[in-house]
């Protein structure tokens, strides 16, 4: 008996008696001798709650989190402030503990949240149909290409090199399964090379995938790329950072057929990468090809407004091998966080927040690019993140900054071989001008110190 199970001696006797066996062991008789575990599970003994807490605190203390340093790390997830009401609502038992709403009569809360979430995502993306969430951003890109495959059965997808490296990798992994070939379209001064894209297009292209803003922070011309795709009857799939859509035109209004993305920026924690949620929106034409749950409005027998999981004939539990996706458990709780966050930000707030990031990002970019040994990696307009080029080894510069309590950003060389000297710097509403100025000081010193070291003959 643990603190979570409660079979007393009396219970045990009554229960075994009712079943008609002499021991619990007997209930496992159907397990053949040959596959039995004949020793205890080899794990440390159980611990009281306080000891588990202490252990998890010990581990937490071995991480340098955004609470411990001033961080300019982004690259797909961002240190935004999570409002307290998000935590409060996500931790309510009624939202935290139920399963997927299979019994709508007692799940109206969760179903309506999905419906509201879908509405908010639809508004943000400018597309009429949103599902209730997918796992996260990069796999959403893979799922979008699968939708394209279901839509037109063409064998190739073209993906901009400005799409998140994890998204491209995930797409590649999944595409091997569903038999699509993935080809990359290079960047030209920071944005998708439209000429290269047009060159690569053909009637065998299923979809073109871009990211807004792209991984180097640059704003893409979604409309131009969508046009290039549509010219050949391919789908235009846009991965987007939803918060930037406070100032950037909605992909749906620029011709994207599908808009997906990472929802972490919408009131979800960093959590070392998850759980967050992916969003997935599309035009009406694709509603019956969408992956995952979709909540729909209906009425009950007494005429009351209500919500249900709808269009379930797309889904694995009904259609099995003919389903449009295998997804089952997705990210309902995180999507709740998303819609609460969007409600909290509100219609004016999302623009204000995005505008604040835009202005601070501009300030940071100009301030840093003015440092000796630091320059812009590209000149394109940016919203919340930008790429720099350092005339010093980026890893060493980052170490120096870290020692001063600053995480200066993402070393582009980790995923872009062509930019070994690249540094990606992200801004959120939590990074003030004072933080940026401090980064400038620390980064300037670090670059200078590294250049001085390099000048010393070995």
């Amino acid at each position: 008996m643990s603190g979570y199970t409660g079979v007393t001696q009396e219970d045990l006797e009554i229960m075994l008696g009712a079943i008609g066996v002499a021991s619990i062991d007997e209930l496992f008789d159907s397990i053949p001798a040959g596959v039995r575990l004949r020793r205890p599970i080899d794990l440390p003994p159980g611990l009281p709650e306080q000891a588990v807490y202490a252990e998890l605190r010990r581990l937490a203390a071995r991480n340098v989190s955004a609470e411990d340093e001033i961080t300019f790390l982004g690259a797909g997830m961002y240190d935004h402030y999570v409002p307290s009401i998000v935590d409060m609502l996500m931790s309510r038992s009624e939202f935290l503990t139920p399963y997927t709403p299979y019994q709508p009569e007692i799940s109206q809360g969760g179903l309506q949240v999905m419906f509201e979430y879908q509405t908010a995502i639809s508004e943000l993306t400018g597309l009429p149909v949103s599902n209730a969430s997918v796992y996260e951003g990069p796999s959403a890109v893979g799922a979008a290409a699968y939708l394209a495959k279901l839509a037109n059965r063409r064998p190739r997808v073209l993906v901009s090199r400005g799409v998140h490296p994890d998204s491209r990798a995930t797409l590649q992994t999944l595409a091997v399964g569903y038999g699509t070939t993935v080809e990359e379209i290079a960047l030209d001064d920071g944005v998708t090379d439209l000429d290269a894209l047009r060159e690569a297009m053909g009637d065998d292209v299923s979809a073109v995938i871009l990211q807004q803003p792209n991984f180097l922070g640059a704003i893409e011309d979604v409309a131009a790329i969508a046009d290039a795709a549509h010219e050949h009857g391919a789908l235009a799939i846009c991965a987007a950072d939803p918060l930037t859509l406070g100032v950037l035109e909605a992909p749906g209004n620029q011709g994207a057929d599908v808009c997906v993305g990472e929802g972490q920026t919408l009131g979800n924690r960093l959590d070392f990468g998850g759980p967050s949620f992916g969003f997935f929106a599309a035009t009406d034409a694709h509603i019956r090809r969408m992956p995952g749950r979709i909540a729909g409005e209906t009425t009950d027998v007494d005429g009351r407004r209500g919500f249900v999981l709808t269009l379930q004939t797309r889904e694995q539990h009904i259609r099995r091998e003919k389903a449009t996706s295998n997804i089952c458990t997705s990210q309902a709780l995180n999507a709740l966080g998303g819609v609460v966050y969007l409600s909290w930000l509100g219609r004016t707030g999302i623009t204000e927040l995005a505008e604040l990031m835009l202005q601070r990002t501009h300030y940071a970019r100009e301030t840093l690019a003015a440092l000796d040994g630091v320059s812009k990696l590209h000149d394109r307009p940016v919203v919340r993140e930008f790429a720099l080029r350092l005339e010093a080894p980026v890893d060493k510069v980052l170490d120096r900054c870290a020692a001063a309590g600053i995480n200066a950003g993402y070393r582009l060389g980790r995923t872009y071989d062509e930019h070994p000297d690249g540094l990606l710097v992200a801004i959120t509403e939590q990074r003030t001008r004072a933080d940026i100025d401090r980064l400038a000081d620390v980064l300037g010193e670090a670059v200078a110190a590294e250049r001085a070291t390099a000048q010393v003959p070995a």
Partner: protein
Amino acid sequence: MSALDGGATPQQRERATTIFEKGAPGRRAFIAPELDVPQVDGLIPAGLRRAAPPRLPEATEPEIVRHYVNLSKRNFDLDSGFYPLGSCTMKHNPRLHERVAALPGHARLHPAQDPRRAQGALELMYELQGALAEIAGLPHVSLQPSAGSHGELAGVLLTRAYHADRGEQRTKVLTPDSAHGTNPATVTMAGYEVVKVALDAAGGVDVDDLRAKADESVACLMLTNPSTLGIFDPNIEEIAKIVHDVGATLYYDGANLNAVMGYSRPGDMGFDIVHFNLHKTFTQPHGGGGPGAGPIAVSDRIEPYLPRPQVVRREPANGGPPTYDLDEDRPKSIGKLRGFQGNYGVFVRTYAYIRSLGGEGLKDVSEVAVLNANYLLARLRERVGEHLPLAFGERCMHEFVLSGAPMKKELGIRTLDLAKRLLDHGMHPPTVYFPLVVDEALLVEPTETETRETLDLFVEAIAAIVEEAAADPDIARNAPYTTPVRRLDEAGAAKRPRVRETL
């Protein structure tokens, strides 16, 4: 005269209004930080700038809180009552897990943080990999998949990579009829053809049918064991042999692992690949449909293909304390299944759970899960066995399937009606109409965290409904009555989908 509106409950009297219908233009909750840098215009080229703002809600914080708190009250949840939803393992969610996951050192850790400054997270993941490997009886673990179905996809893609690496192009994946829908759906997404294997009279895999279908074109057999019928397949060793003899892999859908911890391990049964549902066996809260996580454990021969990065431990040459790192250098890897390293927040909870229970505690989990299921089964058979017989066999593992077919025939109410009527008793119904192989199926999984008293109450409720139906089947047919809404028009919803609020 009692209530305000006939027999409607207070909740039923409220018309559902969305957050988009609340508030008023100009209201807000968010206060923006001040602009502390010089304002520069025209930073976004005209055509790319948003023309009209998204029509998000305009409401104050109190309005938002009240809206969602009241919405939450329209949900049934595990903290409020019994939730014997078969195949879903609705066990108690310890709040310790929420507490530790919220520690800023975990919750505000950036996924792209330099591994040297994320040692705690990597140590946790490494230790969790080890624990899951021990539980599965398979040496290598990837934590990356985001849910069970994602683990399945990983598993089938690993199978593909394994065969491809050996120069083989296999085309089929076998699954039994009792398989969960995600199994066949996964197979399709991974580019294989689904071939169904029949069940034998006892609900296990029909070994003859399997033998007939197993050939060199088969890449994999996907199996749940105990199956979704709650039955441990007694022929598992033979099944494994047949599959391995044709060079195929054996995939373990771990959704039912809660039944066998400490008793048997998928690896020992001969499985090559296993996924875990951390949101089932390891009590990550379900969240109304996620988040979860679906780590996989694999055998040596599958290991080279595992997704990247892998968490590795390095013992420094000088004998100092070990360090942990992310290994991206995996040339045969299938690649990535998602961004970054997986649902770390879920790993924190799982790790806390495993440390709380230890090996003995995990065995206790399975023991009590199986004891509770068998007790509930025995009591139900005693009370309503005639109308709701056990579909296969005499006993069960952690869950069992009743058939509502006799009840339908004799009393005129369907399994669906029984389920809906249970709502009026304040309990969540079992899974209905799954597995597909049982007519009018009712899949019941009480889990280990329920007490005998609760199981007894469930028996009483079921018995009362059956009795009531014998007298007047319409009561159940028109149930529920006391829920925030009553039966909903699902067909209508699908016909004319309204999937967002009209603004």
